[in-house]
């Protein structure tokens, strides 16, 4: 479980996160949703330690990550997998080398064992036989899948996904969403997904946190978010004409 307690983060006069608290449980797909500029990415960067919090704490299974030094954090970071918005694959390495990279750095596996693990991960994301391709030779959806394969290669306990569907067509988005959901249940991971894609909310959202003006404005399930009368959430969820029509029909 990942828990954030009373996080504050400012950039000069710009107070981005206000006393933000939330719990993200293991074995569930936790979604952080909200409009652009509300602090979703900053929150995730604070949780994974790419940014330091001004105050508050981040707990990984009750271990206070925000108070740890670099060496102590390294231990937890090997338990974290992250899927970046732009995939962030190492473009000088092949697909296989990308997946094997964390194994090379942090395990004592033999080359054969690493190759087997890479093949297993590639099979898991349905990319068998693409081992020797470079990231530049892959489509957007394939790059995301390789990034997922790399993220799960170390069997992480925690998976963070920053807008995994951005730039993808609807059917590939659903494929990526389902893959994230499957591996979350399969490995009992604590998965946190940042998104503003309502399809993802409906498809995979077990627990949803709505962030507004840097605050935890609302949290609940996908069934609850459809029915809530919270004005800010409705403005977000039913922003499009299609969703408004759908809401009218449902009503």
């Amino acid at each position, binding site marked *: 479980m990942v828990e954030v307690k009373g996080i504050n983060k400012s950039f000069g006069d710009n107070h981005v996160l206000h006393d933000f608290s939330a719990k993200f449980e293991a074995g569930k797909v936790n979604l952080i949703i909200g409009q652009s500029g509300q602090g979703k990415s900053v929150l995730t960067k604070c949780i*994974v*330690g*790419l940014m330091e919090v001004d105050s508050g704490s981040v707990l990984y299974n009750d271990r206070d990550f925000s108070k740890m030094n*670099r060496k102590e*954090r*390294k*231990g937890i*970071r*090997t338990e*974290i997998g*992250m899927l*970046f*918005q*732009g995939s*962030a*694959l*190492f*473009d000088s390495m092949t697909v296989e080398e990308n997946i094997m*990279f*964390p194994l*090379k*750095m*942090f395990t004592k596996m033999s080359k054969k064992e690493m190759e087997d693990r890479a093949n297993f991960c590639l099979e898991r994301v349905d990319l068998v036989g693409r081992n020797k391709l470079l990231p530049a030779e892959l489509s957007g959806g394939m790059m995301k899948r390789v990034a997922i394969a790399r993220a799960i290669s*170390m069997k992480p306990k925690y998976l*963070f996904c920053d807008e995994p569907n951005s730039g993808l067509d609807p059917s590939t988005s659903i494929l990526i969403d389902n893959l994230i959901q499957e591996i979350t249940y399969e490995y009992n991971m604590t998965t946190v997904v940042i998104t503003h894609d309502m399809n993802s909310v409906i498809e995979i959202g077990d627990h949803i946190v709505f962030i507004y003006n840097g605050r935890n404005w609302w949290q609940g399930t996908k069934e609850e978010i459809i029915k809530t009368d919270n004005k800010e959430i409705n403005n977000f969820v039913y922003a499009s004409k299609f969703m408004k029509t759908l809401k009218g029909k449902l009503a």
Partner: protein
Amino acid sequence: MSYIVSIGKYVGMMKEVFSKPERFKVYYTRTISEINTIGINSAGIVAILSVFMGAVIALQTASNMDSPLLPKYTIGYITRSSTILEFSPTIISLILAGKVGSNIASEIGTMKVTEQIDALEIMGVNSLSFLVLPKIIAAVFFFPFLIIFSMGLSILGGYYSVTASGLASHEEFVYGVRAFFKTSDIIYALVKTCVFAFIIVSVSSFYGYYTKGGALDVGTSSTHAVVWSSIVILLTNFVLTQLILM
């Protein structure tokens, strides 16, 4: 004020760069790869520049020797001295600051803006050490070889230019090249080269690593890397010359 902040950031960065590597084997492989990328791949441009630089030094020396009291072997002597003391270590390092420095800044800068560096950090890899240390070791180790290569080619360029144009004979030029030779000049040149290699890689990595924004900012970082590497090389050259030769 911003310069002081930048110097502080640079010192902090170097502390991280020289922290203990996670996996020596991976770093070793990367260092070998960097020797190829920033060292061996620069041999071509160094060769072309050195030959023509030596040729021009020799021709200009010859054309400026009006006094009949000056022996012809002076051409070889001046070509050798200028090449070893200044042209090869300093001018070639400035050229390498352009070629290698921009390459390093744009490589690391692109990794920064495409979140590849964040990916390394999330995995628990010390991104600064992983990316910069192998480049520093490769440059400090290999640039002296490039400079020795440059010295040889430069003197050879000078030899062919003056002997082919009849400004000095083979014996005169070779005698000049060998006259008053001091081994300490070579050591001075190689010490300078190692320092310049360190400056080129560290300053360029600094600008690359702290790139913010997008493609345009990577270009700006690359330009800053070349400009500041060159300025620091020139300042350090002045200080080292005072310290070692005076």
